[in-house]
């Protein structure tokens, strides 16, 4: 294997420039930078995300899949709005758009909801790219309806599987549940048709992750993602502050992990205690910084924006 960097020095210097711009952007907005541990005895329980294990003196530790839990503990302790540029790790995620170790820009805004946070993301991207971009917002339900004529509020699993066979032939659709069908269609049938910057918001509650349920529309969670020309760039929420609901979601995740033959992960009791003591109303987002660089620097592989890949 070649010892030299996989990115050019032009790109490596552009990365330094983007880091400076990100820091200037948040400094000007009274959002301060934090640095939380990459190793933790607990991790994300999400059934679709595998953590990389490490060990210290016999204790199992997990390389963090995002800095979310630690940052929420800072918020609960009264930090106010914070941001972090952090490496994150996800086992087995390797491809043109994935690397097991990647870079997240994650931030939390106290007092914001998810729509306000989308406004701020637009400002940040305009600031970094030095131009005024066009952004669209569309609900998850409308996006799916527009592209594949599926109404997620009413469609049955069998009909949804038929849609998968129609739009993504060659898939064993009979082995997929509703969310897996939707994940596949978003990735292969819908995202490739998205042009420009598009926020998709109000995800079905089965995909709520750590987002709060929309008070006026209880079938959706206040979660959004940002896409650019089909590339997923960011995932954000109006954060769930209720510790008992959060505990139920962790336990639900671990049940799904067991059903899928995966080992359950220890639940982060410290995060739940922090939520118990009171997480301020806030919204948070994680941007895949490497992917944003792929967009801004017009690179089609994540390797081209990372100094080295294993």
């Amino acid at each position: 294997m070649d010892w030299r960097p996989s990115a050019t020095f032009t790109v490596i210097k552009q990365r330094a420039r983007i880091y400076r711009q990100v820091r200037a952007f948040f400094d000007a907005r009274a959002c301060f930078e934090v640095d939380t541990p990459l190793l933790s005895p607990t991790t994300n329980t999400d059934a679709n995300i595998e953590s990389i294990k490490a060990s210290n003196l016999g204790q199992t530790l997990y390389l963090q899949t995002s800095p979310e839990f630690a940052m929420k503990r800072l918020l609960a302790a009264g930090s106010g709005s914070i941001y972090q540029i952090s490496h994150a790790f996800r086992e087995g995620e390797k491809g043109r758009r994935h690397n097991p170790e990647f870079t997240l820009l994650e931030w939390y805004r106290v007092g914001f909801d998810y729509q306000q946070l989308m406004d701020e993301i637009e400002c940040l991207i305009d600031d970094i790219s030095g131009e005024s971009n066009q952004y669209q917002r569309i609900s998850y339900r409308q996006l799916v309806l527009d592209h594949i004529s599926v109404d997620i509020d009413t469609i049955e699993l069998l009909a949804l599987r038929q849609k998968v066979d129609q739009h993504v032939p060659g898939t064993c659709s009979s082995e997929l549940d509703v969310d897996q069908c939707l994940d596949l269609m978003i990735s292969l049938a819908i995202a490739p048709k998205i042009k420009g910057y598009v926020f998709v918001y109000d995800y079905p509650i089965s995909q709520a992750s750590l987002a709060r349920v929309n008070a006026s529309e209880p079938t959706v969670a206040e979660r959004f993602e940002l896409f650019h020309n089909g590339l997923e760039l960011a995932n954000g929420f109006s954060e769930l502050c209720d510790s008992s609901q959060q505990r139920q979601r962790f336990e639900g995740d671990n049940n799904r992990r067991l059903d899928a033959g995966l080992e359950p992960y220890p639940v982060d009791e410290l995060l739940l205690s922090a939520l118990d003591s009171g997480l301020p109303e806030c919204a948070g987002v994680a941007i895949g910084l490497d992917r944003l660089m792929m967009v801004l620097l017009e690179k089609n592989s994540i390797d081209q924006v990372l100094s080295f890949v294993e």
Partner: protein
Amino acid sequence: MASYNTSEFRSGLKIMVDGDPCSIIENEFVKPGKGQAFSRVKIRNLKNGRVLDKTFKSGETMDAADVIDIEMQYLYNDGEFFHFMVPENYEQHAADENAVGDCRLWLKAQDIYEVTLYNGTPIGVAPPNFVELEVTETDPGLRGDTAQGGTKPATLETGAIVKVPLFIEIGEVLRIDTRSGDYMSRVKK
């Protein structure tokens, strides 16, 4: 039997799909940040050459296909089967018309071809990129007309018909690119 996990998928890997041996042409890892991961692969069915897309959930395993490519010398056609021999051990294999496919247009006795064996039986034959074949039939050559760039059909010793420059004559040996079927040059005997 050996099997491969989706994380081991890479181009060139031979796996069994729907009962047929297939070769992976491309593999793409597809995953929404918080969603199910998939492997989207483009595969070639090694029995019929068809290319198709397949999607597997990450973590699924597929049986390995017992497929091996071996260089063999073409011997002869008995009317039904095409006979090949491994030069090192004289082991012979008979390939049917399906296995030989379009390669039959480039088959010349004594030449070396890549034969694909599945469970020990030939399922594919690939010619070298270039072959040298004699012209058995073509319209009379037009001498001096080497600059015009006009072409005419010529039948080669294997039955293949290729477009050749007007000056080519019966009995000449031509170098042909088997990937495109294009005439490349004359070969001095």
